[in-house]
């Protein structure tokens, strides 16, 4: 009963969130100063068109429909499961997103796992050795990276590995001029390495710094003092007490970082011309492709929400205070 309530509450919250996000996203696009006709057709082509042709284009891009009506039309279809047709790609939004998401998923998953594992390890290393050189090294790395824009880091890696060393491709997700059938999985991996590494490097910094602080809190706790007083070695303390107690905050961090990684992927995919969800979002935004932009916004919001929801559920499974405390009511 309690669990059902919990899920129901979360579900309602999710619906409210999606509604709010769609309104906000739509409102922002409506306020955008970009004229879809000029942006997508071009000033010169527009000048040579007849009024009739222009009117046709206007209705295609929805310029002459009031925003509220357009939003309601979109929402009505969305509720029925129809995300509409992308104005730029002239395909169903769901199909476009499916293709782009698969491309991005590799980047996102790679960055998510690497930043989580590496961030946790570095954070523990720093926290346990607080004030000594491993801590200082991790801190310098993390603070430097945390204050470095992701796109700049992407450019730097691009210059080093693609331009100077020529070991990795400059951009895109597949080799240029190759038939789709002859592209191997390895080709795809090679193209994804640089953007994925960029995302990981930035993600690691954040997680390492947060984990370090948690580890310091745990290492200063009374139960670690007592473990020391009982003769447990530093390694035993890390294994028995430290990992156990930073697991919960680490989980929260890890699931919260999903949103940051998706956000970062928008910039990074742009730099590497990687045809993923992030790049599609930029294209949709600058091209006034409202259905596509809203579709992407909804999907990413859902992914982020699902991440947080999962963290909440896992909390109940992992933390005995919630698990057993709940049983007793």
């Amino acid at each position: 009963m309690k669990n059902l309530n919990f899920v129901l509450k979360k579900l309602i919250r999710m619906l409210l969130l999606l509604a709010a996000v769609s309104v906000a996203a739509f409102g922002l696009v409506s306020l955008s100063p970009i004229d879809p006709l000029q942006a997508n057709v071009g000033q010169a082509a527009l000048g040579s068109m007849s009024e009739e042709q222009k009117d046709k284009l206007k209705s295609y891009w929805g310029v002459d429909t009031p925003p509220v009506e357009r939003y309601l039309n979109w929402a009505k279809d969305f509720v029925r499961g129809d995300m509409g047709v992308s104005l730029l790609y002239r395909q169903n939004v769901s199909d476009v997103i499916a293709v782009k998401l698969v491309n991005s998923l590799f980047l996102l998953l790679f960055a998510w796992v690497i930043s989580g594992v590496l961030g946790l390890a570095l954070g523990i290393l720093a926290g346990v050795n607080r004030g000594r050189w491993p801590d200082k090294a991790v801190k310098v790395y993390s603070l430097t990276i945390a204050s470095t824009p992701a796109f700049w880091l992407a450019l730097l890696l691009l210059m080093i590995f693609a331009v100077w060393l020529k070991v990795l491709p400059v951009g895109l997700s597949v080799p240029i001029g190759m038939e789709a059938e002859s592209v191997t999985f390895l080709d795809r991996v090679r193209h994804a390495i640089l953007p994925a590494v960029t995302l990981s490097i930035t993600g690691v910094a954040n997680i390492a710094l947060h984990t370090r602080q948690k580890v310091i809190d745990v290492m200063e706790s009374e139960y670690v003092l007592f473990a020391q007083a009982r003769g447990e070695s530093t390694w035993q303390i890390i294994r028995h007490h430290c990992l156990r107690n930073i697991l919960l905050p680490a989980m929260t961090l890890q699931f919260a970082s999903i949103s940051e990684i998706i956000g970062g992927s928008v910039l990074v995919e742009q730099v590497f011309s990687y045809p993923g969800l992030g790049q599609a979002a930029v294209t949709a935004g600058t091209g006034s492709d409202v259905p596509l932009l809203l579709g992407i916004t909804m999907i990413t919001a859902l992914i982020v929400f699902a991440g947080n929801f999962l963290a909440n559920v896992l909390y109940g499974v992992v933390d005995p205070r919630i698990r057993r405390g709940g049983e007793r009511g």
Partner: protein
Amino acid sequence: MEEKILLEIRNFSISFTQYERGLRQKELTVIRDLNVRVRAGELVAVVGSSGSGKSLLAHGILGILPYNSRCEGEILYRGEPLTRRRLKKLRGREIVLVPQSVAYLDPLMKVGRQVRSSRKDAESKNRVKALFRQANLPENTEDKYPFELSGGMARRVLVSTARMGQPNLVIADEPTPGMHLDAAKQTMQAFREMADGGAGVLLITHDLELAVETADRIVVFYAGETLEEEPASAFMQEETLRHPYSKALWRAMPAHGFASAPGSQPYGADRPEGCIYGPRCPEYTCACGAEIPFVPAGEGWVRCLRCVEQGEGGEET
């Protein structure tokens, strides 16, 4: 007798470096010139009210003080200095701590596993079960998490940690508060048994009554200083006590009128010159403004000029 002294703490001080307003550093002394001796088979109680620095004494002996603290003086174990390296080998085996509260248990680990230090062998498991049964804990306590224990149960679990091995020296930090009188007495009895079994027990407590009942010797601790050390029997009557603070403590016991002395214990920075009890002492004279030595008196030791003047004094340490 000398070779049987297990733990000897000589002129021991603990101070903290604190930053106040900007970058100005300040030394805050919380324990000053402390002297305690524990012999094998003896239960010594350090009695003081809360805020007197008692817990820090326990942490100081076991080397688990925070990083911004500094210790001075000597700690000898079996006649040899208790260095960090030696301590690392001894603690948890020969020297054990019974900490103050449930906060000293890992909140996410079952208590049974904590008591046996994550050892997995059947022998350890059985030992934990036996110890818990001995401490009158319910059958399945080892599978409980700390948050599922009552305060009294948690304390009994903490005491059990000390009995896992065969310790020679037990440092117990406030093991009884929050317990029923019966449970508290039972816990004290457990320490008495450990002492009778040959271990030295240093018990840090605020409960003079329980201490008088079970301890061999009592050290009166006030604002980080030892004021008097006497055999427990001296605390049966007010007359056999020397220091005015010890007498005030005696009078504050429920059976002796519950009288509280005016004023409160000074803390760190507000330390008065000379006798630390001076501002509250009814017998204060101007001579008490100087440094007061801790001197032998009768069967005990005392840090008070007046008591020495009364003709029982000895020479300075």
